[in-house]
């Protein structure tokens, strides 16, 4: 065992020997080292967050045919630091009539709900916070805390726009939770475990789950974007109607926490897509399973890529109306998710004993078939609706 194959254990042992050498009792040293690990992980995530601000602004600029920040540092790389200084020295306003404690607690909970997620991300085969056997449910539970923070922010601001934004956001989050949970059941079913590490290992030995269930990947991505409250599902912000929604009253670093939370949340869900459907630490660089530093690079690279996909969607698709959005969820995503779950379970049960290529082909084809059937149904529905709208049209003209 050396540092390159198991860094966490090596650091743990070294710290343990050092601390107990100072006369500290074993369990206290254990608690201290674990606390230190938590602080290091959170700090790393927040430092990454600073970089994400730059990535976001630069990519948006490219999508909108601009240059983006390019004055501070090479390629504007140090732009986030002036941003942070500005946020910190801005006047910190708590509106009159706001519920002070709840108002101040909301941004903290909002960021915390994202940081919670980092506990279960397997960055490499032996670098992870905790290998929970209910990790996927834990993901949903952390999302529930995020929902709570938004409704707290909306209510405590004592502002009608904020409350409207919070209502919309909570309606969206509660309803899109359903297709998301069902989409999460698909990797669970394929790997036979809810642990993120177990899911990655199952893909290391077999096929990536995106091959076995491309539709499941798309469902998870769409539900995740809605859960993040990013465009096209960002009507909780709706600048043109409810002037940025639930965080309208927040200024300075309190707004900064919401903003940082949103960016890190998007990146974290990108990493989840990479872990659950694209083999986690195994690709693009080889030996990710043996050398944790390579594995960490792979996971972060995939996270970055899907973060970019989420941004791509955000800056390409216009905002939906709330009734369209809920109809899309209840009449399309939820039934599709349940149909896909049933198809996946049945095909998996029938073909799982066949050789890997036959099993993979059967799963892939069943997904394509289901996707095609759904598209056909949608097309015929749309044709009927169009026909129904076009028939009375000539009478109205004359």
């Amino acid at each position, binding site marked *: 065992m050396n540092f390159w194959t198991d860094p966490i254990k090596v650091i743990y042992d070294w710290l343990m020997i050092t601390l107990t050498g100072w006369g500290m009792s074993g*369990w206290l040293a*254990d*608690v201290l080292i674990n606390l230190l690990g938590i602080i290091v992980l959170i700090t790393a995530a927040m430092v990454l967050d600073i970089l994400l601000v730059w990535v976001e602004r630069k990519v948006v600029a490219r999508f909108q045919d601009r240059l983006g920040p390019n004055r501070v540092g090479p390629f504007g790389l140090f732009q986030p630091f002036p941003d942070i200084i500005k946020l910190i020295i801005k006047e910190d306003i708590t509106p009159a009539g706001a*519920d002070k404690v*709840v108002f101040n607690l909301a941004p903290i909970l909002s960021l915390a709900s994202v940081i919670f997620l980092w506990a279960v991300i397997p960055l490499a085969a032996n670098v992870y916070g905790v290998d*929970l*056997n*209910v990790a996927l*449910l*834990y993901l*949903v*539970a952390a*999302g*529930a*805390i995020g*929902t*709570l923070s938004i*409704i*707290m922010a909306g*209510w405590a601001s004592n502002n009608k726009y904020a*409350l409207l934004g919070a*209502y919309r956001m*909570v309606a969206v989050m*509660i309803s899109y*939770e359903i297709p998301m949970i069902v989409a999460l059941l698909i990797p669970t079913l394929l790997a036979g475990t*809810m642990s993120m590490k177990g899911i990655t290992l199952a893909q290391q030995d077999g096929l990536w789950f995106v091959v076995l269930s491309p539709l499941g990947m798309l469902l998870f991505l769409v539900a995740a974007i809605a859960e993040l409250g990013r465009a096209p599902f960002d009507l909780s912000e709706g600048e043109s109607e409810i002037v940025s929604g639930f965080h309208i009253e927040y200024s300075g670093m309190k707004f900064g926490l919401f903003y940082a939370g949103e960016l890190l949340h998007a990146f974290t869900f990108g990493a989840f897509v990479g872990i659950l459907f694209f083999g986690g630490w195994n690709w693009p660089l080889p030996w990710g399973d043996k050398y944790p530093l390579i594995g960490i690079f792979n996971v972060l690279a995939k996270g970055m890529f899907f973060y970019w996909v989420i941004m791509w969607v955000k800056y390409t698709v216009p905002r939906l109306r709330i009734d369209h959005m809920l109809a899309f969820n209840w009449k399309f995503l939820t039934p599709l998710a349940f149909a896909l779950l049933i198809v996946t379970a049945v095909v998996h049960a029938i073909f799982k004993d066949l050789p890997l290529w036959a099993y993979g082909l059967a799963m892939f084809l069943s997904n394509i078939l289901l996707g095609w059937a759904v598209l056909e149904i949608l097309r015929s529905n749309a044709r009927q609706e169009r026909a129904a709208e076009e028939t009375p049209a000539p009478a109205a003209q004359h």
Partner: protein
Amino acid sequence: MDASQIIFFLSAALILVSALFVVTARNLVHAALWLIATLFGVAVLYVLLEAGFLAVVQVVVYIGAIAILFIFAVMLTRRDLLSQSSQTNANWPVALGVSALSLAAIAFIARGFGFSLDRPLAPVPTDSLERLGQALVSPQQFVLPFEVASVLLVAALVGAVYVAMNKK
């Protein structure tokens, strides 16, 4: 005293204090938020008991669904609904007597358990989640209650669709 005991005392204190505030808070939204703190403390206790699944489900169901519904319902009511009126009514001595009796009964039963640190901890199976899943679908165990519960949920769902349906 080790780390898990410290966490136990902290979460027990959180549960008791926030449960007290649930009933004494004058603002209904604050009461709901204190209730969430209580439920979160219970989730921490489940984690200490090595019941990870139960803990996570506690957060998803109680905080993610039920408490949010509470807050929604409370927000749609009038804001100053309870701030002026008294929090108790004429029946409070009866309620006090009943709760004192229940406390005495619980204390009496708990005395018989003989809590002590000498007892060995019950072994926690490593595959408890798998066992739970199989118990829910195995005919010898809980498949009937499980299916009955799902029928109940489907009935509720159909009822909701019927109520919301646009009758033509």
